[in-house]
C-alpha cells in the first residue's frame, strides 16, 4: 500500500475501528457502520478484501492465540498506528481549513462523522 496516498475510505474506517480494541470480522463491520453513521456498509467480500490489503501492508495483524479458526481477531500494528495518526492529522488539517473557509459548518457537513 502506497504511503504517499490516502487510504481508501473502507481501509481508513477499519483502522479507526481497530484503534479501540482488537476485533473479528463481524465486530469490525459493526464498528465501521457505527463510526461512519451507516455511510460505510461492508459485505464480507469488501471487508476481507480490505483486511487482506491491510495485512499485506503490515498495517494490521492477526492476533495469535485469540479467537478460533473461523473467527480471527485483528489488531493494529505499530506501522498501522503511525499510518492512522498521519491520516487523522491530514483530515484534521483539511477540516480546519474547510472551517476557516466556511465550506464546512461547525456542527454539520460531509466530514462531520470523522470529527465527531
Amino acid at each position, binding site marked *: 500500500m502506497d504511503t504517499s496516498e490516502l487510504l481508501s475510505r473502507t481501509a481508513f474506517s477499519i483502522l479507526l475501528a481497530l484503534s479501540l480494541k482488537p476485533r473479528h470480522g*463481524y465486530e469490525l463491520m459493526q464498528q465501521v457502520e457505527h463510526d461512519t453513521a451507516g455511510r460505510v456498509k461492508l459485505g464480507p467480500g469488501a471487508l476481507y478484501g480490505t483486511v*487482506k490489503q491491510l495485512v499485506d501492508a503490515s498495517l494490521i495483524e492477526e492476533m495469535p492465540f485469540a479467537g478460533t479458526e473461523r473467527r480471527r481477531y485483528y489488531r493494529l500494528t505499530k506501522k498501522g498506528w503511525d499510518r492512522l495518526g498521519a491520516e487523522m492529522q491530514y483530515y484534521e488539517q483539511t477540516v480546519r481549513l474547510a472551517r476557516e473557509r466556511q465550506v464546512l459548518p461547525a456542527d454539520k457537513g460531509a466530514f462531520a462523522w470523522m470529527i465527531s
Partner: protein
Amino acid sequence: MDDQLRQRFPRYARLLRLYPGAYRNRYGGEMLQTLADMLDYAASPAERRRVWVRTVLDLPLAAAQQQLITIGETMHQSPFIKRSALISGALLLPLFAALTANGLDKALRNQTLYHSGLWNMPWLALWVLYLPLLAGGIAIAGLCIALLRARSSRGSALAAWPLAAVCIVALGIIGAVLFHDSVHCVTGNPVRELRNMHATLTCVQQR
C-alpha cells in the same frame, strides 16, 4: 472451511469458488462465519433479506478484484509468462508488418507488393507459416508450464492470458493459411517446395 457453515450456506460456499484458491483458503471460513453472524444478529426477516442482498451484491465485485490482484501478483512472480508472451508475440510481427505494408501500398498507390520478395518464396513461407508455427509452439509450451505452476503454487491460472492470446492468434493464422487456396503449394512438403521455387511460384499463381 468449516463443514457446519458450508452446510448452512451451501450456495454461498459454492460462490466463494469465484475467489482465487489461496484467498479462499485463508479468508473463506471467516467470510462464512461473518455472514452467519450478520444473519444471526439481524433483528427481523426484512433485515436478513437486506444482509443477503448486500452479501450477494458485494461478492462479484470483491471476487473480481481479488482475481485481478492475484493475476497481477502471479505475473509479477512469474516473469517467464511475460517473456514467453513477448518472444512468441514478436515472432508474429513480420506477418502483421507485411500485411500492413501491403495494405498501405494498396491504399496509397493502388498497388500490391505481390511481386516483391515479401510475397514470394522463401520469405513468404517464413513469415506466413514457420514463424507463426514457432510462436504457437512457444506460446502453447509456455501456457502449459504456467498452468502447471499456477496449480502447484495456488496462483491464478488467468495470469497466463497473454500466452493464451498469442496462442489463439498464432493458431488462427496457421488455420487461415492452411485453408487458403494456394497453401498446398508450400505446405505439401515445404523443404522440397522451397528447393523447387519455380514450380511453387507457378502453383501459387495458378491458384
